[in-house]
């Protein structure tokens, strides 16, 4: 039997298995921490979305909750001036190249970005940063699946889902601002051995991957 430990998150004492990542412990105890890129079964944690920052007593700087193993007596605060500033900036950077079209977006109402904005009282529209849209091609080549890279937050969940349930045809390509999720040789999904399983659409936290609304028409 693994060791159980107790820790304090936002004044609430919770019990958890030692070594589990703080993010999942908090979420299991109904304490919301913004997050996009992490999954529970990650071997290598991407820690790339920079949204799950928390303050930990005894640590000089805020740390990402997805990479912090819990230990006995840990005292954590999910908010605070420094955390709020980091999350606000990280969120604004994400939103500065996210095509904002909530009204027509299939993820409207069930979107991680909307949830983060709501719980942290942040604006979806960036205030300080200019919006840099990339105008990338929307892929609807496989019936039942729609991929709009302009809405992608590069969390990588679809890549993991495709490896698990599909043919492993998705990956990160290019670098920096040009980084996108694409297939080998940037081919459309229909030419890339896509199995059409739709796992990518099921795991996408935003509206980048979605089930094709007009699937019956094809």
């Amino acid at each position, binding site marked *: 039997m693994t060791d159980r430990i107790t820790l304090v998150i936002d004044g609430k004492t919770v019990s958890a298995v030692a070594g589990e990542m703080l993010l999942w412990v908090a979420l299991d105890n109904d304490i919301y921490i913004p997050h996009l890129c992490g999954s529970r079964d990650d071997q290598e944690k991407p820690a790339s979305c920079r949204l799950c920052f928390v303050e930990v007593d005894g640590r000089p700087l805020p740390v990402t909750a997805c990479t912090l193993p819990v230990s006995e007596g840990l005292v954590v605060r999910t908010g605070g001036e420094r955390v709020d500033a980091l999350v606000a900036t990280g969120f604004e950077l994400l939103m500065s190249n996210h095509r904002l079209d909530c009204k027509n977006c299939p993820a409207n109402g069930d979107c991680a970005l909307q949830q983060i904005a709501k719980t942290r009282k942040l604006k979806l529209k960036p205030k300080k940063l200019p919006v840099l849209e990339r105008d990338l091609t929307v892929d609807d080549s496989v019936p039942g699946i729609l991929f709009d890279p302009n809405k992608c937050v590069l969390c990588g969940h679809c890549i993991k889902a495709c*490896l698990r349930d599909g043919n492993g045809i*998705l*990956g990160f*390509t*290019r670098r920096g601002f040009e980084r996108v999720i694409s297939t*080998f*040789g940037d081919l459309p999904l229909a030419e890339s051995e896509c199995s059409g399983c739709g796992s990518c659409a099921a795991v996408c936290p935003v509206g980048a991957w979605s089930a094709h609304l007009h699937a019956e028409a094809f």
Partner: protein
Amino acid sequence: MELTAEEIRIAANTTGDVLAGFSDSRGNLIPALQQVQNKLGYVPRVAMQKAAAHFRIPAVEVYGVITFYNQFRLTPPGKNQVKICMGTACHMRGANIIQEAWERRLQIKVGETTADREFSLERVACVGCCTMAPVVVINEEVNGKITPTRVDGLLFAHELDKKNAAEAKGGAE
């Protein structure tokens, strides 16, 4: 740009030879790709697919590595390699406008090669002659103070040189 069957065959054989010298440990991926790039001058689809099979990873992962690093080319280099300097001074003097001029005239994007294999286009960092900004290096020849009109001129001069060389060759025979 399409590769010929012969080029694909050579690329496949070369990649096979290179991969034979590496174990299937994932850490060998980049050294293997570098050797392929050194031997062929570029890393074509067939090479990426062979590498993916060798290291037992999805082909898209190899493609991700190739597109991440500037040192890898996806297309064979042209006979003449045009390198546009993107250093600070050239950047300030409008290197992006020069880049657009080349892209428009050659009808290719940076990193690509024209269909006739005459020119390939690259961006480089500082070439060390900032007083001449914006600078374009064609093969080994440095050209300073480039304007879009000069791009037309350089291409025209190249056409002339080619014609003269062909005539001189014809005359000698």
